[in-house]
């Protein structure tokens, strides 16, 4: 096996074939499940399915239709459980029922309800959020009593906006709607994954290099392999480790989406599609971005001689990847803004900015190509810089290497 691949495999196996790695793979899904579980638990504590009373003093509701299922979102499975609405002739009857525990609360529609829309709520303990939401839905449906029930239900459901970019749009045809919600957010998910890859790769790579330098292992290694084999082998191994972790998480996510969509019939998980063109556009920028970051980290790691300092400094390179989030408001308002276009071309911010823009609009192909080309050029330059820094700094201890020295003739 080529020595570079031996190093790559060694770096990979040393980190992946460990119990700690399996725990790391399982950690995120466990965390997400725990968070969702916690949310469900909190939700359940706020839920109350007992009947809700109302007193229609004004006679505004006449012969009311029962409430319709009110869903806060397509995955609100609890919405199907309706809270019975109990009508009382007077406030005293309702109060007596409340005290007996037959109802959780009751509303009183004011005598001048038609003019003021005034409604009073009476309770001993605050009613469940599901019950109050259903009461408002109940009121709305019955306000629209003259309409076809289906129309009334649709009117109470609110807006359902779908944005479509037709064929021929720069960047291709796309659709943005609640139905494709998760698919639309895939670029954002990929951007977050990319930031994780950058953080993980840079911190692990810098740690591996500085530790090897501190332990003097690097001197042994360089009597067996070239600097290029050493550095590229390490980068491949460490990126491989990060991608394995991501693949593990992706597999668990796919399984979760499938189970959620097909077994539990959660609407949000039933129309998840991966846009191949979008993924390709991100990939052509992601690869040179990763090479660029790795080269910068190598240059930094070899010029420093203290692992702690190196860890702290490595964050500087990841910061630009997060910076596009500062422009979130502008991205939502005008994804084609010139500032955002420029940031799509700037190496290190390019990938995240591209992802955020792809989430909300179509990005012209020339911008993607220019971004990939500029990032690739920067990666070549950074690799050249890293190679010079490596030779000068690999056995220097206790004294930092200056940029002037790296650029100097003796490197």
């Amino acid at each position, binding site marked *: 096996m080529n020595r570079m691949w031996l190093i790559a495999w060694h770096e990979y196996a*040393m980190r992946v074939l460990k119990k700690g790695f399996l725990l790391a793979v399982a950690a995120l899904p466990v965390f997400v499940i725990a968070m969702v579980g916690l949310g469900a638990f909190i939700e359940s504590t706020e839920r109350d399915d007992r009947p809700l009373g109302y007193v229609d003093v004004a006679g505004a509701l006449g012969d009311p239709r029962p409430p319709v299922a009110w869903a806060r979102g397509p995955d609100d499975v609890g919405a199907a459980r309706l809270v019975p609405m109990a009508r009382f002739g007077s406030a005293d009857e309702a109060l007596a029922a409340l005290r007996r525990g037959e109802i959780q609360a009751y509303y009183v529609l004011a005598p001048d309800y038609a003019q003021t829309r005034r409604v009073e709520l009476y309770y001993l303990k605050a009613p469940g959020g599901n019950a109050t939401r259903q009461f408002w839905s109940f009121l709305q449906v019955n306000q629209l009593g003259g309409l076809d029930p289906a129309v009334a239900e649709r009117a109470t459901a609110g807006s359902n906006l779908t944005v479509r970019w037709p064929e021929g749009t720069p960047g291709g045809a796309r659709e943005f709607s609640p139905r494709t919600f998760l698919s639309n957010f895939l670029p954002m998910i990929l951007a977050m994954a990319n930031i994780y890859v950058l953080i993980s790769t840079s911190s692990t790579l810098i740690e591996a290099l500085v530790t090897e330098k501190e332990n003097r292992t690097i001197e042994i290694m360089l*009597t067996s392999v070239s600097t290029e084999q050493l550095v590229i082998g390490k980068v491949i191994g460490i990126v491989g480790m990060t991608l394995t972790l991501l693949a593990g998480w992706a597999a668990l996510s796919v399984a979760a989406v499938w189970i959620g969509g097909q077994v539990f019939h959660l609407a949000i998980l039933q129309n998840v599609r991966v846009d191949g063109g979008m993924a390709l556009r991100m990939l052509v920028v992601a690869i040179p971005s990763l090479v660029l970051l790795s080269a910068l980290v190598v240059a930094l790691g070899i010029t420093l001689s203290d692992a702690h300092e190196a860890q702290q400094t490595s964050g500087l390179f990841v910061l630009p990847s997060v910076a596009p989030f500062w422009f979130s408001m502008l991205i939502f308002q005008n994804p084609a803004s010139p500032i955002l276009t420029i940031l799509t071309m700037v190496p290190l911010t390019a990938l995240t900015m591209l992802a955020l823009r792809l989430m909300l609009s179509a990005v012209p192909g020339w911008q993607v190509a220019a971004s990939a080309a500029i990032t690739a050029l920067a990666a070549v330059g950074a690799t050249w810089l890293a190679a010079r820094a490596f030779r000068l700094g690999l056995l220097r201890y206790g004294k930092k290497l200056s940029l002037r020295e790296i650029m100097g003739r*003796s490197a």
Partner: protein
Amino acid sequence: MNTVEVSHIRKSFGTARAVEDVSFSAEPGQILGLLGPNGAGKTTSIRIILDIYRADSGMVSVLDGPMTEGKKARIGYLPEERGLYQDLPLEPCLLYLATLKGVAPKVARQRLGEYLERFDLAAHKNKKVKELSKGMQQKAQMINTVLHQPDLIIIDEPFAALDPINTQMVKDLILQLRDGGATILMSTHQMHQAEELCDRIVLIDQGRDVLSGKLDEVRRRYMGHAVIVRVAGELPPLEGVASTARQNGSLRLALAESASPQDVLRQLVAHGAAVERFEIAVPTLDEIFIRAVKEGTTS
């Protein structure tokens, strides 16, 4: 054919001149001692040979030509600062480094087993390197240096941290490798070790080689015209002795130019002196080292 040829190399780091002008060569089946005080430029010279550093000027030939990636598999290197993977168990650590030298895993495993037995490390092969004593790590590093059966072995202070028993083990290995035809370049400032092992020496001081040659020739060059004598009782009066000085319970007799050691011995026998010790005063490498450095500084 020389395995290593170094000719007038020079290397600076910024304004600091680490190597000023160093030249030497080493042949197969020979141990060349690279001697000198701390900071003389020995390790920098070694790193230039290994192409870890590039010389500012001068020429280096390794295994019949410039250093190449392919030649790295024929070189074994024990650096002064030891550098094994601290968090790896000993056996996988050494196997990994051996495979980087191009040794097939199966062969590496077999050879490693033999070396671990020889150096009493077999029982510790599953321990992490950082759990081993300094001496054990030193032996492990020595195994790493020779496991791939290199033609050129460069060892920097190989006896540091070793007790006498382990020192002897390493010495025996070095001599065995030398007898097997390997070229050994040994950097040390432990003169008695160099004296015992080296066929040739190069003395480096302040970045320059101030003395080089076969050990016997160097000794002869620095040999004074004197004898060391110890007799029971008083030393009889002797002709041709210019001065007398006490030295470790014996007397060091500096001879006049016209006198020879044989003349002195004859006179002692003629006087009926009970001679307990009589030897021609040969300077130790320590003494040669100090004199050469002083002369180098003076000149």
